[in-house]
């Protein structure tokens, strides 16, 4: 699966590339407008991570060019401008999603995964991972064909973990993903602990191995035990 990261900040671009590479994506990078244009013309990508403010041009122009050429590449806009207009314009031009800086890398991972799912498995709404089957449309989970009843939040949580398989996601990133980041909602993140505890208990009761592990007291990691 090939991704293109169009981002002029080399440090950020590197982080994104490294993080997504853990998920076996092949990442190409472009640091400025012209090389980005060249790349989108020559190749097709499962998803393009597009920064709006670029040297010598706007990311929105690249998006327009993509659509003009009738390309189907998924596009995730990342922007530091965080203006509602940018978001609306970007989505109207055909971008699939919008993420404002500074974002959590797992959030980016989940969004990219969601875009790729929508683009590549049209009609097929299932994620199969080890013995687990997540139904995207019905938002349900099956373990070896047996339904595991999950609450909405538990399902979203599991999907988030699965989208960031083998990577540590922090509590803060989870809160932002599940509850939004509009406000300083809580002075501690204990409340997500109960959701995670319930999810782990339900998975254990359904006879699953320990998929979700706590890491350094700051986050969790979903992985398939070997």
């Amino acid at each position, binding site marked *: 699966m090939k991704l293109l990261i169009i981002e002029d900040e080399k440090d950020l671009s590197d982080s994104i590339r490294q993080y997504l590479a853990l998920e076996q994506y092949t990442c190409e990078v472009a640091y400025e407008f012209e090389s980005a244009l060249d790349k989108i013309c020559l190749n097709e990508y499962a998803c393009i991570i597009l920064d709006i403010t670029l040297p010598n041009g706007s990311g929105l122009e690249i998006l327009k060019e993509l659509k003009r050429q009738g390309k189907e590449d998924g596009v995730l806009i990342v922007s530091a401008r965080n*203006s509602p207009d940018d978001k609306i314009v970007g989505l109207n031009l055909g971008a699939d999603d919008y993420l404002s800086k500074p974002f959590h890398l797992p959030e980016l991972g989940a969004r990219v995964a969601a875009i790729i799912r929508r683009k590549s498995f049209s009609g097929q709404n299932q994620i199969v991972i080890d013995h687990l089957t997540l139904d995207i449309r019905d938002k349900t989970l099956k373990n070896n064909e047996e339904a595991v009843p999950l609450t909405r939040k538990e399902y979203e949580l599991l999907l988030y973990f699965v989208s960031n398989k083998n990577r540590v996601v922090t509590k*803060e990133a989870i809160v932002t993903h599940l509850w939004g980041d509009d406000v300083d909602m809580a002075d501690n993140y204990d409340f997500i602990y109960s959701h995670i505890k319930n999810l782990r208990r339900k998975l254990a009761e359904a006879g699953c191995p320990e998929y979700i592990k706590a890491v350094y007291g700051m986050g969790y990691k979903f992985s398939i035990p070997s």
Partner: protein
Amino acid sequence: MKLFTKYNRINLSVMAVVFVLSGIAYYLLISNLFIHELDESLNDYKDKLHVFIKQHNELPRFEFFEDIVVTYEPVNVALKKKFVLVSRFNAEEQKESTYRQLTFTEKIGDTYYAFNIAKPVEGTKTLTKTIAATTLVLLLAIVSGSVVLNRIILKKLWKPFYTTLEELGHFKLSRGYVPVFATAGIEEFSFLNRTLSGVMREANNDYRILKEFTENAAHELQTPLAIIRSKLDLVIQEEGLTDSQGLALKSAYTSINRLAKLNQSLLLLTKIENRQFAAVQAIDLEAALKEKLVQFEDFWNAKGITVTADLTATALKANTELVDILLNNMLANAALHTQQGGSVMIRLCPGMLRISNTAVSGSLDNTRLFHRFYKKAAHSQSNGLGLSIIKQICDVQGIGITYRFESGFHHFDLQWPV
């Protein structure tokens, strides 16, 4: 007191004093003139009498109907000539009148005669009355005239001033425009207007620079923040970090989150100030609040906070995004500042939303409450921008917000015209 009233008061009292004084002066002057005339005619009479006595060496016959009353009596020595005012019976008018009397001595033969010749001081009363009446009438005429004139002229003259005042009343820094003052045609007012325009332009400029600085600083911070956060996200992926490294990373991560949140709030504030949220539509507040209650359930449960909601369906015309942020902030604020086991009450009725929560300690400082970076406790984890954002949103959406502390509860009331 209005300028007109004050001016009229001073003007009129000074005028009244001047008129009364001038009336008195007139009276004295004219009555003196009268007396002087009387004295002259009495003198003439005396001279005639003198000539007559010289020629005939006897007293003339005094006609009874003469204007002048003459009395005489023999005396031993010659008296000095003198004028006096006396009161005597006036046979003609059948009452006491004031007379001007001249006393002098004439020698007829060997006998001295003291003569008193007197003339009534006629018209003094009439004079007094006339002068008083004239003064009063003139005073009234001038007073009413000046009141009317002042009203018309001053109003016209001061019009530019009042126009300027009105413009000033509407001036608001955050709107970013300087009112255009009409040219006054009066040097003082033109100067005032020029000075005011200058000061406002400067204030606006300073305000804009400050705002742009905040905005630019916040924007510029976004990218480094994104880089730091992404690097931390990567570092924690490393296997085999020691516990102390993990702890250090954890606190770095938390701090970055606080910084990101702070920055986001500042950006939001500048965006609200720049009125970037213009679209307005009717929002079903009941539905919006119900949705929020579900969203916040977890936070409240985790803290053991009891939430009671009394919601009546009502609509609010405002920007959807801003109202969403407003509700988030208000509810988050209530949850954040309520202790374990406290309670939050939400009451919605047409035109009003009240959110109350158990207070940890006493009342908040109502004067500084909505200022940026206001914190009750210095070590608080919140960035002190929540209420500032709430206030800003209320201001731009025309919602009134008030805070009250009552029986151990903080009450925040939002009110809007239905």
